[in-house]
């Protein structure tokens, strides 16, 4: 029986989501699925992500995960976004296994943002 449903990290990210909000003149992606709504905004300069913001509607793990993603990828290369996987957030926050579906929605939003930024079309493999 897991008595405390939220780790200290999840609580902190949920309480003060420093990257919450929108960004003007930014690339963005947005997904509404599985009762979760996610919007991501990125400003990129010379291939590097200068600003990363999110808006989210969902349970505390979704909000914390979106914040954690922004915290982690702000300042990195836009091309790194394709490395992002939901499972790294699932483990580091952590997120309980029954909520994986919701975190995959974030993964989708990140992928879609990556594509917008890199201007690539869906790879067909």
């Amino acid at each position, binding site marked *: 029986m897991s008595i405390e449903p*939220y780790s200290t990290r999840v*609580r902190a990210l*949920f309480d003060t*989501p420093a990257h*919450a*909000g*929108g960004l003007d003149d930014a690339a963005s992606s*947005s997904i*509404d699925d599985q009762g979760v*709504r*996610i*919007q991501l905004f990125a400003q990129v300069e010379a291939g590097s992500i200068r600003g990363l913001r999110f*808006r*989210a*509607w*969902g*349970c*505390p793990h979704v*909000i914390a995960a979106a914040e954690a993603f922004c915290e982690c990828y702000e300042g990195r290369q836009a091309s790194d976004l394709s490395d992002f996987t939901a499972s790294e957030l699932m483990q580091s926050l952590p997120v309980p296994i029954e909520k994986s579906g919701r975190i995959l929605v974030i993964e989708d939003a990140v992928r879609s943002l990556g594509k917008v930024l890199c201007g690539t079309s869906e790879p067909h493999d």
Partner: protein
Amino acid sequence: MTDKPDLIYLDYAATTPVDPRVVAAMSRLLEMDGDFANPSADHLAGRRSSVHVANAAEQLAALLHVHPDRLIWTSGATESNNLAIIGAARARQHRGQHLITMPTEHKAVTDVFRALERQGFDVTWLLPDECGALDIDALEAAFRDDTQLVSIMHVNNETGLLQDIARIGESCRRRDVLLHVDAAQSVGKLPVDLGQLPVDLASMTAHKMYGPKGIGGLYIADRPGCHIEPLMFGGGQQRRLRPGTLAVHLIAGFGCAAEIAATSLAEDLEHLTTLRDQLWAGIRDVPGIRLNGDIDNSFPGILNASIADIEGESLLLALEPLCVATGSACNSQSQEPSYVLRALGRSDAEAQSAIRFSLGRQTRSEDIVVAVRRYRSAVSKLRDLAPVLAA
């Protein structure tokens, strides 16, 4: 887990803290120097214990205006409901197998009726109006020649809504149908005069009225046809209706809680009404808020409101350190939206965003101030976080 940084407990409908006087009464009945013996034992120590049991029955009976012999001790309202409903259905099944209840009852009623359905009983589920009230005409229309039992709760545990037990009971009496009332949320909190009300069976539990957990009561009216079969078998305790060693300290605690309730009920109600009104005044203008229930026809200790476009779990976390419920405490471990609110016609989204504030004797006006502030800020925080509906 000893430090509790300013928790604000607003979940009195789930369970109450035990009154210090009750704690004191119980603590004298536990150890070697107290009356801990088995009250059925034929010796001095046993007889001393049995005095406490008899006193407690008097205390609870006085609160309910009934004879102490009409009360059975159980382990709580869940057991009382099971014993009353299954017991009466079985005792009367030779006369007929039709039963009537509502989908907005507590799980400890609805799940019992579902079990009876599986055993071949025929259950009519009467739908509530959008506040949760029973339409008496619908009840009248539902009666059949083989109807044996109606079960309707007094105060709804999620919304606080009050049913009109007197009128429901009159309808039942006219047709010689038994009425069981789940009074877990009303006994000790509202006047419940079972000497006057046309009620045959009533369930109650100590832990919702400042008594200990693990002890409940069942009232069985002294009327022809009002019989139940036991659920459990064993020693001859409690006229064979509910065997097992009597838990003297819990019974005495329940009795003491009943005595306290009898004297403080009016004052408690006034206190709760003031606080509930303060709370509702503080949040009713939040955009998208919607009251569940009917504030003019409710036990004032419970206020339940849904809020548009807010995710319930995040709302609950954002409300900390308020301790409030999203659904009935008894089924909150499941993540399903409240079946009670769904039955009142709320959408899944409305139901899952519902917060039940339930207030009690120790709730102070300052707590309500904090609750209002927290609720407003949680809602605006989550709204700020949410995507602007563009997609």
